[in-house]
């Protein structure tokens, strides 16, 4: 395995910022640690980079041990590149010199070629002799990426690489960054609190909470088959609807019987929460089921309606925007779920 973390623990005093983190990343894959702030994702990244020692577990790359309790390979010997949240470009060096910083050991020609190649890939060949403060945020970001990739590290770590950029730029750059990483065949690990970013860049995403991984999976699986209620909550939008298990694969709700994709270990008669994504709820004027609109968000192509059911429960529905309904109106709906996941009720 290219990168492997096994039961990694990092404590600060009594607090365990990272608390038993394990995952593996294949060569050429782009991983992502996703989670709310304070979940330990950045600490995990700093442990991998070697800026923090670890208290338990091991970190390996390519079968080299990078860290274990009490011992670390110094950051400068790890072959782990890093792109920082604030980019941390060297202000006294030009774009070109920044990129060249980590490859001073290469012969002049090789170095030149590598710089040209990288600046070409990140689209900054024309700004090579400018200083960081003369660049826009997006350009600085790309310089940081090129600089980190220049020494051909085993792994590139990206710490919230888009957080200091504006939203517009973020989406565009995240696609570009993925392109660049894939083009150069780099193995990368990204840390973010933004699910869009994670999904746009990563092949595989781990959702972290309190220093632990809740789930390590592809974005599709995370969205449609969240392993825990936390993941279901954190990833995408959705609402929980109460139901009663009537057969191993069926749950009765106030919107009718819902088919589960796989049989759970539920008791017949047990009450469960079903995760309904907004796209699981279809607007249908012909439906006998109706719900009252209590909030709406216009999203251009669609409306995201918050609907109140007879029981008072609220669900979300994504409706094409020509169906323009006012708050307070009742509209017909039906369920058309692809993947329905049930969770034990959080409170009885």
């Amino acid at each position, binding site marked *: 395995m290219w990168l492997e973390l096994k039961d990694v623990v990092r404590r600060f005093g009594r607090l365990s910022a990272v608390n038993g983190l394990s995952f593996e990343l294949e060569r050429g894959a782009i991983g992502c640690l996703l989670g709310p702030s304070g979940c330990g994702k950045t600490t995990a990244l700093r442990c991998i980079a070697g800026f923090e*020692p670890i208290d338990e577990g091991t970190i390996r790359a390519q079968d*080299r041990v990078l860290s274990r309790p009490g011992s670390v390979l110094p*950051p400068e*010997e790890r*072959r782990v590149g*890093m792109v920082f949240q604030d980019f941390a470009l*060297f202000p006294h060096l030009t774009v070109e010199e920044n990129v060249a*910083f980590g490859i001073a050991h290469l012969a002049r020609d090789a170095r030149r070629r590598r710089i040209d190649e990288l600046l070409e890939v990140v689209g900054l060949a024309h700004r090579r002799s400018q200083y960081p403060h003369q660049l826009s945020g997006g350009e600085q970001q790309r310089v940081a990426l090129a600089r980190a990739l220049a*020494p051909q*590290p085993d792994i590139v770590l990206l710490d919230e690489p888009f957080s200091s950029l504006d939203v517009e730029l973020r989406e565009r750059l995240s696609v570009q960054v993925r392109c660049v990483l894939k083009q150069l065949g780099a193995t990368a690990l990204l840390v973010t609190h933004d699910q869009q970013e994670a999904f746009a860049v990563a092949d595989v995403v781990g959702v972290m909470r309190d220093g632990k991984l809740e789930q390590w999976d592809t974005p599709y699986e995370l969205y449609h088959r969240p392993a825990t209620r936390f993941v279901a909550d954190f990833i995408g939008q959705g609402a929980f609807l109460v139901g009663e298990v009537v057969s191993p694969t069926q749950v009765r709700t106030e919107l009718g019987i819902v088919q589960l994709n796989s049989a759970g270990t539920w008791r017949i008669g047990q009450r469960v929460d079903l995760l309904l994504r907004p796209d699981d709820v279809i607007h249908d004027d012909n439906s006998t089921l109706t719900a009252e609109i209590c909030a709406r968000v216009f999203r251009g192509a669609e409306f995201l309606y918050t609907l109140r059911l007879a029981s008072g429960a609220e669900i979300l529905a994504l409706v094409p925007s020509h169906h323009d309904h006012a708050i307070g109106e009742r509209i017909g709906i039906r369920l058309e779920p692809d993947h329905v996941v049930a969770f034990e009720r959080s409170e009885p």
Partner: protein
Amino acid sequence: MSAIAGELSGLRSHRAAQAKSFALLFVLCLPALVPLAAVLTAMLTPETEIWAHLARHVLPGVLGNTLVLVVGVSLATAVLGTGLAWLTATCDFPARRFFEWALLLPLAVPSYVLAFIAVGFLDYAGPLQSWLREVFGSSSWVPPIRSTGGVICVLTLSLYPYVYLLARSAFLTQGRRAQEAARTLGMSAFKAFWRVVLPLARPWIVAGTALVAMETLADFGAVSVFNYDTFTTAIYRAWFGMFSIDAALELAAVLLAFVLVVFVLERRSRAKLRFTTTRDVSHRAPRVELRGGRAFAAAAVAALIFALGFLLPLLQLAVWAITRARMDFDARYVGFLWHSLLLASSAALIIAAASLVVAYMERRHSSLALRTLVRGATMGYAIPGTVLAVGILVPIIGLNNLLQDLLARWFGDAAPSVLLQSTLLTVLLAYFARFLAVGFNPIESGLNRITPRIDEAAMSLGVGGVGLLRRVHAPLLRTSLVSAAILVFVDVMKEMPITLIARPFGWDTLAVRVFEMTSEGEWERAALPALVIVLVGLIPAALLTRRGEHVA
């Protein structure tokens, strides 16, 4: 098994790395720690009988005096140094380019020289009051110069450049930009200064003021001219007057408690400090153009300080040098000058380089033990010069005696005689002990403003340790490094006690000449070497201007 061993190679124990860096730093700081240890161990053999006397008759007055002096001089230099730095770094007014470097020059005038001239000129018998009496019949309304206020004024004029130099480098690197940013947010220039520019420059201002406070604590020359009793004068009185170096060392240990307070205040003022990134290399916001009365007032204040702190003393020295000391000027001055320059510039280089290493190690492996070590090593600046000189010389002599005994055992009567205590190496080691703080403070506060992410970025690119220092920190800290080197250079030019006690036979410097003349009260004849010291001090100031222009 061997496979596992191979796989683990290269791994460093974290704790071992910490211990190693502590050990390295300890060795590096050793010369500075030795005199400190000498002072502190004196506490083990208390001179109880003298103490009782000191506690009853000396300490109460001396404690109050010292406190008033240190607080007064620190506050006054902080205000004056910061204000002038702000004016010259972010505003434009007539002759601003001249004042930018001219305001640094009072640094080159030793404070005891300024004190002597001030007292001579302003005292009852001095020309000013004599003239007033002649014209108005009385001068009794003139406040006495030999007073607490007088000492504070003179030390402030003499020491404010420490704050000025450091605050200026802070304002130059980000003052105008920060100010501009604040003003776009609707703040007035005045408000922008208080809310944004000043807080950003705080680490520098505090670092400079801490140097001033320490120098004030250690000052003997200037306060003696005023006959103002401080801890330092009490130390010398116990030593030279009561022949008790132990009591002197104990007083010095109490003095260190003052320094601890300075350190704690300094740390506290930085506690909430946020790291700010980088400096602009070429982008500069325009200066605030002062007009009319304001421009005149700015120029007038700068001119007044320059005149009082530099021009008038320089003129007085020149007059004395020409009228009274002309006969002293001979070919030997080439040697004095060369010796002074050699010592001052090598000390400046060594201490600036060592400070960079120390500051970097503290940054990289920050731990309580390490910080304590570094703080301890920079305390030497507050210990009165002669005490420190003896504190470092005595252990070196001990080493020399050991070596001599060994040689005697090996070679018998043919043993060569060694004299470590009067070598340039010893002089430089002692300078290191005394002036580490002077180099360290500017560099540490500069380093504090570089975000640690920059270090990590370099390390993740495979560049750590010396490479990181050389390729990232040194260029980013250029201004701080130059400031540190200049301060050390000028301080060493003026330094007496260490040079006196440890210099090789016949190796006299300009400061030694000043000592020879002043110690028997021949101040006018001391004007010649003092004048040369001041003139040599112009060299680094000029260098700084050229640098400043280059950066701008």
